[in-house]
C-alpha cells in the first residue's frame, strides 16, 4: 500500500516537473519576447520605444539571460509562491489570476459531479436492462454527446437561450454580484449559474462513462457469483448493487484520472464561449500578447491542479479496491 502511494506520488512529482518544463518551453517558442510585442503595441499607438529602453526592459525582466537560467530563476520564484509580474497588466500574476483559478476548479468539479451523478445510474440501468428502449435511447444520446465538441454545445446552448428565452445563459454571476466581494448571496448566485457550464462540460465525459460503466457491469453480470447471490434469494436490487456494481466501479474511478485533464482542458474553451470568468479567456489573451509569466503560470497551475486531482482519484481507487490496497498488483 505504501509502495503504491509512493509510486503514484513520484509519478505525480515527475509529471509536475514535466509540466513546468513544457509550459516554460511553450512560452519561449514564439519568435521574439514580451519586449518585442510591447514595442510593437507601443509603436502602433504612436509612441516609440528606444533601443536603450528596450534593452533596459529586457534586463529588468531577465530576458537577456540564457534560457536555462531563465527557467531556474522562474522555478525559484515559483517555489516561493511568487509567479512574477503579468506584464501587460502591470500587476503580480497571482493578483490577475486570483479568483479565476478557484472558479475554474469549481466548474471542473461541478462538471465531474454532474458526470458521476448522471452516468452511474444510467450506466447501471443500461447494463441491467440491456437492449431496452431506454438503453438504446441513452446509447444514442451518448453518441451525440461524444460527437459534439464542448464549445459547439456551448454555442448551441447560448443561441437557444438567447433566441427562445431572451436570456443570456453565459457568465457565472448576475451583474449585481460580478464585482461584489464574496458573500453568501454571491455564492448562491454562483450555484444558480453553475448548472449550464457544468452540463455543457460534463456531457462528453458522461457519455464516455456511461459506456464504460455499461460494459463493465455487463461483464460482471455474466459471472457465476451473481447467479449464486440470486440463488441465495437476495433481492434483485441487492444482488446488483452489493456485488457487480462495486466491482464495476473500479475502472469507473480510475477514469477520473483521465476525465479530469479532459474536463479542465474543455473548461478553457467553453469558458470563452460562455464568457465565464475562469482562467480560459485570460490564457488566450496572455498567449496573444506573449505575456510569458502569465501564460506560463496558468498552464503550470492548471497542470498541477490536474495532477493533484488525479492523485486524489488514485487514493480513492485504493480505498475502493482492496486488490490495490493489499498490494496485489
Amino acid at each position, binding site marked *: 500500500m505504501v509502495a503504491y502511494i509512493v509510486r503514484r506520488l513520484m509519478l505525480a512529482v515527475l509529471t509536475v516537473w514535466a509540466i513546468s518544463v513544457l509550459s516554460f518551453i511553450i512560452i519561449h517558442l514564439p519568435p521574439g519576447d514580451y519586449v518585442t510585442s510591447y514595442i510593437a503595441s507601443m509603436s502602433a499607438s504612436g509612441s516609440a520605444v528606444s533601443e536603450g529602453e528596450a534593452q533596459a526592459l529586457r534586463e529588468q525582466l531577465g530576458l537577456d539571460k540564457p534560457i536555462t537560467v531563465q527557467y531556474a530563476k522562474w522555478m525559484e520564484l515559483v517555489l516561493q509562491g511568487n509567479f512574477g509580474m503579468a506584464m501587460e497588466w502591470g500587476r503580480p500574476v497571482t493578483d490577475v489570476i486570483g479568483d479565476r483559478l478557484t472558479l475554474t476548479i469549481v466548474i471542473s468539479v461541478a462538471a465531474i459531479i454532474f458526470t458521476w451523478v448522471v452516468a452511474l445510474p444510467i450506466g447501471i440501468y443500461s447494463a441491467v436492462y440491456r437492449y431496452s428502449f431506454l438503453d438504446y435511447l441513452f446509447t444514442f444520446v451518448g453518441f451525440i454527446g461524444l460527437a459534439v465538441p464542448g464549445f459547439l454545445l456551448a454555442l448551441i446552448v447560448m443561441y437557444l437561450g438567447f433566441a427562445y428565452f431572451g436570456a443570456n445563459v453565459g457568465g457565472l454571476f448576475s451583474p449585481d454580484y460580478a464585482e461584489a466581494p464574496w458573500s453568501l448571496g454571491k455564492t448562491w448566485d454562483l450555484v444558480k449559474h453553475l448548472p449550464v457550464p457544468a452540463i455543457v462540460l460534463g456531457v462528453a465525459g458522461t457519455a464516455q462513462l456511461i459506456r464504460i460503466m455499461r460494459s463493465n457491469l455487463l461483464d460482471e453480470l455474466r459471472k457465476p457469483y451473481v447467479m449464486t447471490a440470486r440463488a441465495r434469494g437476495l433481492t434483485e436490487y441487492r444482488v446488483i448493487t452489493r456485488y457487480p456494481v462495486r466491482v464495476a466501479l473500479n475502472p469507473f474511478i480510475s477514469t477520473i484520472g483521465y476525465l479530469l485533464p479532459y474536463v479542465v482542458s474543455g473548461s478553457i474553451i467553453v469558458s470563452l464561449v460562455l464568457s465565464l470568468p475562469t482562467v480560459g479567456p485570460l490564457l*488566450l489573451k496572455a498567449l496573444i500578447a506573449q505575456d510569458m509569466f502569465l501564460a506560463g503560470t496558468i498552464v503550470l497551475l492548471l497542470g498541477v491542479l490536474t495532477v493533484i486531482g488525479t492523485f486524489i482519484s488514485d487514493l480513492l481507487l485504493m480505498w475502493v479496491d482492496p486488490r490495490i490496497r493489499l498490494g496485489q498488483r
Partner: protein
Amino acid sequence: MTAEVAAAVAAPDSVAEQRIAVATQWQLMWWRFRKHKLALGATFVLAAFYLVAIFADFFAYVDPHASNAQRSLIAPQWIHWFDEGRLSPYVYGLKGARDPMTFKRVYKPDTSTKLPIVFFAHGEPYKLFGFIPADRHLFGIEGTDTAEALVLLGTDVQGRDLWSRLMFATRTSMTIGLVSVALSLVLGVVLGGVSGYFGGLTDTVIQRIIEILRSIPTIPLWMGLAAAVPSDWSVVQVYFAITIIISLIGWTELARVVRGRFISLKHEDFVMAAELVGCSKPRIIFRHMVPSFISHIIAATTLAIPAIIISETSLSFLGLGLRPPAISWGVLLQDAQDVQALVISPWLLITAFPVIVAVLAFNFMGDGIRDAADPYL
C-alpha cells in the same frame, strides 16, 4: 428419404462453413463488418464527405474567397423543388433594397423571377486536382451569373457564399484528420512497438512519458504551441504546423493499443516458432506479428480521427489554429462566436452539422471495424 432431407438441410450449411474455412482474415472481417449496419452506413457517409473533400471545386459553385460587402449576411435561399407539379427545382431571384430605417442593404426573394437550378451546370472555371481545367459544377443557374443569384446557405459577414466555403472547409478539415492521424500512427506504432516488444526499462520510460502526456490538459498545451506558430507563415505552413502539434499529443492512445497487442502476442506459439527457426527481429515483427494485429490498429486509427477533427476545429475556432484565408470548419465557426450575431443570422452555425456528422460517422465506423477485427470481444 430421411437421408435426403438431412442432406438438403446440411448442404447449404456446409457450403457456408466451407466458405468460412477458406476465407482469408480480411474476408471474415468484411463479412462481420457488413452485418454492422450502422457502421456500414457511417462508411457511406464518410465516403460522401471525402468525395466532397476531393471534388470541393465541383461541389462549390462560386469562389469561396470572393467577398462582396454589399451582399453581407444574406439569408439562405429556399429551394422550391416542384414547379407546377413537376420536379424542377428553382429558387427565386434576389432583390436588393435599402431598408429605409436602418439604411442597411437587405435582400428579399423576388417572387416574379424563377431561376431554375441546373445540375452539372457551367460555371466559374477551375482546375480539377490542380491541373485539369474544368468549369462544370454540381449545380448552378444557367443564363444568369450563379454568383449573383444563388445563395444556398446564405452568406457570411463579408458576403462570401457559405455553401461554397463549406465545401472547401470540408476539404481542409477532413484531410487534416488524415494527415495528423498518419503522423500519430507513425509515432504510436514505433514507440508503442518498441515499448511492447523490448519491455524492461525502455517500456517503463515510454509508459511514464505517455502517462505524463495524458495527465496534462491538452487544450492549454495546444493553445500554447499553436500560439507559437509565426503569424507570417503561409496557409500551407500553418496547416502542417497544426497537424504536427495535434499529433504530437495524439499518439499516446495509439501507442497504448500497439503496445498491448505486442505484449499479448509476444508469448504466442507462432512467435516463438519464428524465433526458434531463426527469423530476424524485423522479420518477426513485420512478417509475423504486425499482420495479426493490423486490423486493431486500423480500428484504433479510425477512432482517433474524430478527436483530431475536434481539436483542429476547437483551435481554429479560438483563432489559434488555421487562420483566414484558410477555410476550415473551425474558421467558419469563428464567425458564429458572437451570440448576438448568431441570433440575427443563425445560418452561420450550419457548420456545426458537418462537424457532428463526421465525428459520429468516424465513431460508428471505428466501432464497427473494432468489433469486426476482434471476434472474441
